[in-house]
């Protein structure tokens, strides 16, 4: 009994874990970092004013003192790039979190109505902020828009979750149908508000409803980025629990995870991230669906890698889409929400066809 080796020593430590994808997952996640940096550089150089990466670097470090180029970089392109990174990371990560929560790869903040709820909250602030809601909105200042979007997103996420989950089981059909209903209700309410809006508000709303990275100022970006960072900071803590949830809620309980607390945390963080991204960029669909799905195909569904990789992948996708949106119809630009819908819609159809028969309810 004296010198008993721990039992696990008997197992050979040199086994090759076939079927484990963590090595590949680490590699892919790490290689996404330089990809995002390159794409950000692409976003800074493309546009009506041609610039080389070298110029951009010299302006950013203050070595090139050209007031015009300085203006272009710091007031036009850098905010866009930062917004693209923030929004892309927020949407993709909340997509992963919601898919983990619902245990379904089809849960997307846009599809299940979370974005629409957040949009309703934001539109209410834009349209009614100077009249009916003024006592609420004015003291909050720049915080009002992201907070309203967060509240709208939280309410819809909670509603959809309550609707689709009964006794630890999530019904996919209810989830998607509930999403349709919530999208319709929130859309109608948003439409009513748009109907009430004046000309100036209308222009803001139209552009914003299609999703755009153009109208964000530094202040709004800073607040929303704060929201997103808050949500991102929470997600690593729930990554292991989301892994356990993949085998079902009861197995997650057996593995020692506080399932109810985790679910609340996921709902709040997803609503935070979606609310913040809707507040700065409007509705941008399919990022939360496409990015996690593609990454799951390459690195597997381990949330410890999938969450950070999706954040990077979402940022990458939006940076590239934004560069494309500015080039296609230059010198004008395409609303980025239209572009992601044009790319993501067909992708979703392909996903449905591929999964047909495996979907179940």
């Amino acid at each position, binding site marked *: 009994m004296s010198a008993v080796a721990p039992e696990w020593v008997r197992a050979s430590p040199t086994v090759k874990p076939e*079927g484990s994808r963590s090595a590949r997952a680490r590699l892919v996640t790490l290689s996404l970092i330089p990809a995002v940096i390159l794409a950000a550089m692409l976003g800074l150089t493309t546009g009506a004013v041609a610039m080389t990466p070298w110029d951009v670097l010299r302006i950013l470090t203050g070595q090139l003192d050209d007031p015009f180029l300085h203006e272009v970089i710091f007031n036009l392109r850098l905010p866009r790039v930062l917004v693209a990174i923030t929004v892309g990371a927020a949407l993709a990560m909340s997509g992963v979190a919601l898919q983990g929560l619902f245990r379904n*790869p089809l849960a997307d903040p846009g599809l299940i109505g979370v974005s629409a709820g957040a949009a309703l909250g934001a539109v209410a602030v834009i349209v009614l902020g100077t009249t009916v809601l003024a006592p609420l909105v004015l003291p909050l200042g720049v915080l009002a828009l992201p907070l309203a979007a967060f509240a709208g997103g939280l309410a819809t996420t909670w509603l959809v979750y309550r609707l689709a989950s009964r006794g630890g089981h999530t019904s996919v059909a209810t989830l998607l149908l509930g999403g349709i209903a919530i999208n319709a209700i929130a859309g109608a309410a948003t439409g009513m508000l748009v109907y009430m809006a004046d000309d100036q508000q209308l222009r803001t709303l139209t552009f914003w409803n299609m999703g755009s990275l153009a109208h964000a100022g530094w202040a709004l970006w800073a607040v929303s980025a704060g929201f997103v960072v808050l949500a991102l900071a929470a997600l690593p803590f729930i990554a292991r629990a989301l892994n356990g949830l*993949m085998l079902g809620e009861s197995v997650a309980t057996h593995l020692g995870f506080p399932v109810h607390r985790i679910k609340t945390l996921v709902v709040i963080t997803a609503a935070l991230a979606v609310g913040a991204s809707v507040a700065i960029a409007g509705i941008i669909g399919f990022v939360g669906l496409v990015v996690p799905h593609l990454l799951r195909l390459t690195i597997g569904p*381990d949330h410890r890698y999938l969450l950070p990789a999706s954040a990077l992948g979402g940022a990458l996708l939006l940076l590239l889409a934004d560069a494309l949106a500015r080039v296609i119809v230059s010198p004008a630009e395409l609303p980025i929400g239209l572009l992601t819908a044009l790319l993501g819609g067909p992708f979703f159809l392909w996903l449905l066809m591929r999964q047909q028969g495996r979907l179940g309810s």
Partner: protein
Amino acid sequence: MNSLLHGRWPLPAAWRSPTVRPSPMPAQAPSDTGIQVRDLRVERQGRTLVDRAHLDVAPGTVHALVGPNGAGKSTLLSVLAGETRQNHGQVTWSGRPLDDWCPNALARCRGVLPQEAVVTFPLTAWEVAEMGRLPHRTPERDTPIVHECLERAGVLHLSGRDYRSLSGGERQRVQMARVMAQVYETGPQRPGVLLLDEPTSALDVRHQLRLMELLRTDAARGRAILVVLHDLNLAAAFADRITILEGGRIADSGAPRDVLVPATIRRVWGVDCVVETDKHTQCPWVRLRYGTPKPQCELEASP
């Protein structure tokens, strides 16, 4: 004295940190180890699912839970697994009520195999088995442990396959590997428990035997094992004790030869049988009576 020193700490002192070498547990009265269920009652929607249940599963033993469909076996197991809350009565593990345990500490010594687990994400068999290591933060030894458990469950050759593409029996064995990986570090000095809900339901005869032999090995390592079974002969051959549940109540409990008697089987399941003794193992062997010989369909000989 021990409990005074450790307060409400849910673990034996040796468990406090994974880096501390486990010291032998202080000698305890037999009633303080293993699982004890006392006067358990579970009601759901006005129906009593389990009533006045007493159960003891000692470390180092395989305890089989048998009974007709709907007798409350799974309900009883889910209370022990912490999924369902009882309306009355108490469940203790190592002398402490289940509620006093920290969930993670419990997860490191209690493995639960549910009847089925639905997976919607493209996990490989390896990744499913690796889930059993989630309660532990021991990445350096997870790989050899998962490898060994998959090997013991006889599914190592499937480790790269998509879990959803496996057959029912293969999935069950992968889940079994996950449960074994979860309680891997438990042994004579660190009490562990396995709660298995019909682990043989999808297995062919060879794998049924292999699984039951696996449970015997695990019991020999000091784990307390509670297993729901339908095959009375498997229970008779491999379990130390058998508890028969009927309509939520315990009909009988004891050693196989005392419990598996024609009168009880007739009363609980409503089938006739003869109980013989296996010459080789000396275990009781239940031979069901099937009534009349198979009716033969008489075909007219074709010209």
